[in-house]
């Protein structure tokens, strides 16, 4: 039995355990002995004495639409979930739980829970439904899918998923839709979570490049850039507290004084959408003051690689000698005064200057970067970002001098139009600092390393797509609504929305409801609760809560793999996504792909993984508790400083983007920034952020959560509020030319003037009118499209705010 720090044993069963508690024993848990003798023995047992028969504790893992993946001990009493407690990890530095996980009990037993399959019985969106049987439902689904496929082609049936359940088996609908040749658009861009990744891919070739959080204690300095870690990754905050106690300094860069900023040693307010400019400014100061890591740039970045003046392409061996490889990249050896190649470890490559090779004028890409950052003087950066020039210098100096230092970046800075741009610039700054691949260093997404979740996505690819020959062409998530509305690139006529509150968390719900959904022949929604999205369905399938299912779950932010174990039977007629897919598959002729049990598929996913350290994990091991995948502990990313790019180096120069003028990081004005002419009408920048009380929109309606925080507020600076006659508690409307949103105001000193903030995930019925997403937009961003696709940009919006009443 594990003990806590006081030596008191912690009750933490490592497997399903049964504790039969007799009513008398429960009642005998006396309140006290002592001077005030209890009049009557505590009769708590009386209230559940009738059923106080069986209590068991089941080990499982949470899903709260978040990246915590907290191991849980669920107490089940008389068949009901009554308590969530944190469960032990083999390494209890990872043991944790949060306010959302505890409150999920009320989601389980919520009156909003969808109980039966339901068919629309009124206008779409009226919320009128009638109950039908699963048999009828699956027949309707199969019929509709087949009809659409026959009329328009199989790719006209689409499935859009999001993050309501991160278990591998929750991809069962994807498995099904892939098998019937339907389209499964990419979801992370629609979610607005992919901007950062694009920048990371451009520079390092990988999405997640961080060290384990247990390594934070080794950093001298940590910059939290656009991440509100206290609220979004609270389960891992204690690692930051440990680091602070050990002497690490923290800087937070954010337009809002979040609880994370309160924790940090220095808060730098910054105009939304201008983070790239600050990063360029920091690089400017670092170069001017010789605070950059020459060694790293020379050996591990694209810095020495020569770039052709004429085409902007990298100089390759094939450009220099006949028959040369196009995989070898040229550098200029300053000692030999001649061309050599990046893989020549004996060379002393030039990082500056201009050279000629085979008649071609070339420069090292670092020279180009140097030229690019030159214009970002602290004064220029102050103009763009609102960060005082002196602070730019101070930030750069402190960062440059702190070795090792780490930068954790969040979605807060990447949910802009040029979404790839901020992380690209910030990570380049990290490369200039040179701490990749060392304990305490690095720059990248605050999720840290590509944890078990991502490794399981790789491992379960075969489960999600069992037969590649049947797959339809890929569809961009941000194109989904166009496909439905305009038939571009092809008409999508049947849409299955699964684990996604599309009409709250997605772009422009007002437009989607008016212009897009009417074009659908069939809208199917799999949901746990009657969300705004479910209200618009033609058919709703009731989905089981995570207490009611078996699933395989990988942690996003560490390397633990969990088995989610069933605690209680599915309520009402709900089925897990896996079970639902099975019964639909039976009616669509692909039932044989779903005829094994959950446990069998889980074992298959593990055994079939291309990753050896996943293959070795067994179901029985997982039943005992979370299993850490066999990667080094602590995980230090890029230990050999070899990146996953074509040059195997950190690439701040991307030749492929030269035609679009984006070969190098630079600052690009936001779509609706403070520099835009639109500020005449709509002078305030609207941003949002996830709060600790709800993962997306998942927890906003939980009564216990609402007792803490019941309605959205618009945070506005005292300066902006005063000029509009707004006081805390007044109702205000935020509006632009796309929509409106009415809610209470809160005047705060903790937000930049000209910036307003509304927390994420509030349901429309919690606003006085409209909702946040009505203010957003769909626009295609060419560079993002060239890299992958446009990232939804809900933090790049201009609005005006007026007082109501």
């Amino acid at each position, binding site marked *: 039995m594990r003990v806590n720090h006081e030596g008191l044993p912690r009750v933490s069963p490592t497997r399903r355990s049964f504790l039969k508690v007799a009513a008398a024993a429960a009642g005998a848990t006396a309140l006290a002995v002592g001077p*005030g003798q209890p*009049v009557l023995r505590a009769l708590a047992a009386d209230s559940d004495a009738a059923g106080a028969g069986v209590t068991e504790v089941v080990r499982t893992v949470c899903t709260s639409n978040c990246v915590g993946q907290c191991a849980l001990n669920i107490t089940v009493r008389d068949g009901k979930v009554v308590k969530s407690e944190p469960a032990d990890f083999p390494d209890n530095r990872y043991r944790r739980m949060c306010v959302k996980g505890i409150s999920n009990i009320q989601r389980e037993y919520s009156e909003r829970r969808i109980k039966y399959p339901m068919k629309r019985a009124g206008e779409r969106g009226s919320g009128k439904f009638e109950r039908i049987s699963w048999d009828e439902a699956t027949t309707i689904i199969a019929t509709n899918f087949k009809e659409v496929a026959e009329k328009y082609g199989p790719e006209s049936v689409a499935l859009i998923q999001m993050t309501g359940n991160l278990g591998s088996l929750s991809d069962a609908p994807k498995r099904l839709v892939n098998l019937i040749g339907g389209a499964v658009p990419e979801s992370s861009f629609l979610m607005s979570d992919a901007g950062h990744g694009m920048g990371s891919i451009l520079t390092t070739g990988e999405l997640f490049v961080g060290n384990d959080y247990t390594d934070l204690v080794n950093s001298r300095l940590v910059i939290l850039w656009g991440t509100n870690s206290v609220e979004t990754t609270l389960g891992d905050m204690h690692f930051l507290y440990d680091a602070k106690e050990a002497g690490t300094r923290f800087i937070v860069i954010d337009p809002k004084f979040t609880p994370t900023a309160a924790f940090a040693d220095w808060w730098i307010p910054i105009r939304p959408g201008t983070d790239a400019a600050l990063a360029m400014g920091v690089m400017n100061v670092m170069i001017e003051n010789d605070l950059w890591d020459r060694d790293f740039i020379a050996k591990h970045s694209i810095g020495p690689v020569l770039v052709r003046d004429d085409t902007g392409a990298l100089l390759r061996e094939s450009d220099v000698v006949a028959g040369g490889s196009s995989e070898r990249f040229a550098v200029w050896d300053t000692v030999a005064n001649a061309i050599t190649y990046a893989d020549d470890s004996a060379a002393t490559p030039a990082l500056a200057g201009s050279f000629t090779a085979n008649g071609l004028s070339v420069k090292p890409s670092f020279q180009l970067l140097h030229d690019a950052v030159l214009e970002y003087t602290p004064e220029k950066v102050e103009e763009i970002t609102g960060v005082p020039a002196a602070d730019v210098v101070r930030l750069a100096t402190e960062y440059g001098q702190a070795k090792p230092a780490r930068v954790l970046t969040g979605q807060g800075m990447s949910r802009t139009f040029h979404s790839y741009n901020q992380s690209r610039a910030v990570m380049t700054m990290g490369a200039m600092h040179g701490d990749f691949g060392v304990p305490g260093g690095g720059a990248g997404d605050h999720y840290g390393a590509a944890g078990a979740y991502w490794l399981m996505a790789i491992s379960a690819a075969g489960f999600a797509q069992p037969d590649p020959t049947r797959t339809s062409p890929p569809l961009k998530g941000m194109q989904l609504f166009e496909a439905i509305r305009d038939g571009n690139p092809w008409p999508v006529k049947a849409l299955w929305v699964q684990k996604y509150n599309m009409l709250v968390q997605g772009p422009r719900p007002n437009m989607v409801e008016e212009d897009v959904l009417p074009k659908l022949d069939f809208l199917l929604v799999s949901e746990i609760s009657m969300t705004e999205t479910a209200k618009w369905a033609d058919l709703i399938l009731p989905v089981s809560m995570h207490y009611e299912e078996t699933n395989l779950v990988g942690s996003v932010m560490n390397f633990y793999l969990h088995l989610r174990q069933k605690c209680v039977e599915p309520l009402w007629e709900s089925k897990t996504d896996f079970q639902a897919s099975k019964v639909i598959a039976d009616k669509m002729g692909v039932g044989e792909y779903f005829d094994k049990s959950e446990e069998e598929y889980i074992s298959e996913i593990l055994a079939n993984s291309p990753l050896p350290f996943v293959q070795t994990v067994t179901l029985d091991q997982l039943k005992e508790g979370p299993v850490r995948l066999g990667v080094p502990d602590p995980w230090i990313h890029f230990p050999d400083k070899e990146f996953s790019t074509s040059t195997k180096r950190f690439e701040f120069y991307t030749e492929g983007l030269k035609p679009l003028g984006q070969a190098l990081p630079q600052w690009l004005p936001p779509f609706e920034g403070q520099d835009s002419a639109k500020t005449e009408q709509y002078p305030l920048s609207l941003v949002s952020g996830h709060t600790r009380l709800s993962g997306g929109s998942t927890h906003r309606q939980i009564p216990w959560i609402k*007792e*803490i*925080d019941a309605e959205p507020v618009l945070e506005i600076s005292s300066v902006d509020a005063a000029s509009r006659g707004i006081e805390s508690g007044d109702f205000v409307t935020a509006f632009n030319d796309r929509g409106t949103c009415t809610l209470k105001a809160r005047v705060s000193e903790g937000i930049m003037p000209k910036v307003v903030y509304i927390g994420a995930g509030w349901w429309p019925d919690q606003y006085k009118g409209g909702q946040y997403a009505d203010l957003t937009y769909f626009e295609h961003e060419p560079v993002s499209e060239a890299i992958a696709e446009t990232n939804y940009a809900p933090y790049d919006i201009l609005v005006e705010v007026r007082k109501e009443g």
Partner: protein
Amino acid sequence: MSTEATVKAAPAKTAPAKSGSTILLAVTGLLTLGGIGLWAYQLSRGLYVTDMRNLTSWGLYITMFMFFVGLSAGGLIIATVPRVFGLKGFKNVSKIAVYLSICCTVLAAAFIVIDLGHPERLWHLIAYANFTSPLMWDVIVITAYLIVSIVYLRATLRAEKGQGSEKALKTLSTVAFVTAILVHSVTAWIFGLQIGRAFWNTALLAPMFISSALVSGLALTLIVVLILQKVGYLKADPESNSRMAWLLGIFVLVDLFLLFCELLTAGFPLGGTGFEVVISMLSGAFAPMFWTEVGGGIIAAVLLLNKKTQASAGLVALASALAVIGIFFKRFQLLLGGFEFKNIDYYSIPTGPAAWSNGVLNYSPTLVEWGIVVGVISLGAFMLVLGLNKLALKPAES
């Protein structure tokens, strides 16, 4: 012939009085029943039907408790002091004052019981008594006080009939007097000893309660006496009235003086919680009640002490009413003030359900609370009318 006429005449004299009190008894009886009905509703639905909530956990009922303890103690002090100190008293009204005091004591106790969550557990006060609690002291003292008051009244009535000794009566007076002082001191200590409530925590609270008790008790007695004189139950007694009025005027001034001491002491530092309290009374949330109390008090004192106005029963009654109302507002301010200023004021979610009112003082009594208060006061009126009719409360001479 003449007997017939006499017989015919007699009923005409007493009939109006009888039917008058019958009506009074009927009305107050009905209102009392209504109050009991509301109390039953409160018990079943829960104290939720009041406006009290976790951060303002006492309200109108405890205010009334304080108020009626004051009214009762005052009445009894007026009745016993002359005998104790061998002064010229208010012999003609002292029995009425004592009986009035008894009624007020009963009402005070009623308010406490009504405020309790579990009145059926009242016996716990005996079975599990905790003697460090000022509330327990008050239970003991009020019980003793009720008994002593009744014994004293009974002894007074018997003494008039020639039974019992004057010496015994004097001893009883002393006991009653001391108990009366004690009742109000202990009631004050319920609040005054609480270090957690700055508004209450002053050594002056017991003297202030006694002073206010004298004001309200005498004022109430005076009002009742003036009414009874008006309806003919008592003979007019301008000299006694004047003396009582004058005494009341002095009491009002003393009470105002003590209030002034409090304000000066708390306000002089020009900062701190005490200063916040003063500001809230002078110009903040409590200002309306405060200025009614002070303004009313000053007007009352003038009316009572001025020889000319002292002679007018109407003006004296008005002044007495202002004094009583002033004391009620003082009590209400005291109670609400204790809850108004929070020791830990950081932003927090509520700990329980929201109140019905969104009032400035976070508390505004609901109709149920007022209804119950009316019911209890009606009970007092009922008891008073009954007592005036059934007991020999008129002065011995008549």
